[in-house]
């Protein structure tokens, strides 16, 4: 099993450009998440999905859109990139929610995005 994979690994964008980050998981997990990681701020949830065809906003959703057309894939889109979106983006997946501790979030290796 590859677990959670992310493409691309690195990307440099100019302000105003658009791009899509792809996340794929092969663990048949229902839940998928997109986080951004910034120095001194930990990981912050951007958007998440509780199943194919459903998405919802997280803590910092502005400037991002997502889609979950297939259970194994979760796409994060930036329509008009801004320097404030320079960050490392992590995708994660987990089984359906259950008792505390009954699930674990598995993270991908991350995408380092720089917006100039």
């Amino acid at each position: 099993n590859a677990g959670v994979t992310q493409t691309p690994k690195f990307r440099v964008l100019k302000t105003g450009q658009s791009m899509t980050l792809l996340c794929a998981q092969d663990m048949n997990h229902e839940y998928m998440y997109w986080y951004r990681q910034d120095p001194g701020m930990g990981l912050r949830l951007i958007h998440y999905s509780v199943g194919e065809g459903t998405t919802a906003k997280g803590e910092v959703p502005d400037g991002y859109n997502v889609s979950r057309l297939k259970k194994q894939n979760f796409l994060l889109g930036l329509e008009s990139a801004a320097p404030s979106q320079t960050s490392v983006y992590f995708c994660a997946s987990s089984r359906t929610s259950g008792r505390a501790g009954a699930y674990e979030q598995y993270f991908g290796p991350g995408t380092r995005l720089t917006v100039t």
Partner: protein
Amino acid sequence: QQQVKQSPQSLIVQKGGISIINCAYENTAFDYFPWYQQFPGKGPALLIAIRPDVSEKKEGRFTISFNKSAKQFSLHIMDSQPGDSATYFCAASRVPTAGTGRRALTFGSGTRLQVQP
């Protein structure tokens, strides 16, 4: 609003020493407290987790101590090794928001641990 506060920001420990990282939370609805370990260039990975019905959980050299009344929990790494050098994140989650079934993780800001040989 930072719901999970983590300290210190960075920590240097000698090989064989004890590393201690502390976290404090505000939301009393939190009922699951995991610690994640992240090596450079990698995604975070679950290290150990605890529920508030116990005060301590130990897995090998890693121990979580939990103080419900103080709303604090800490990670202790005994006999710290250079291979433990990484960034550690505490996190917390609560009972799923009604109708969503989702357990959101709220992360602390991270501690960069360096174990010197």
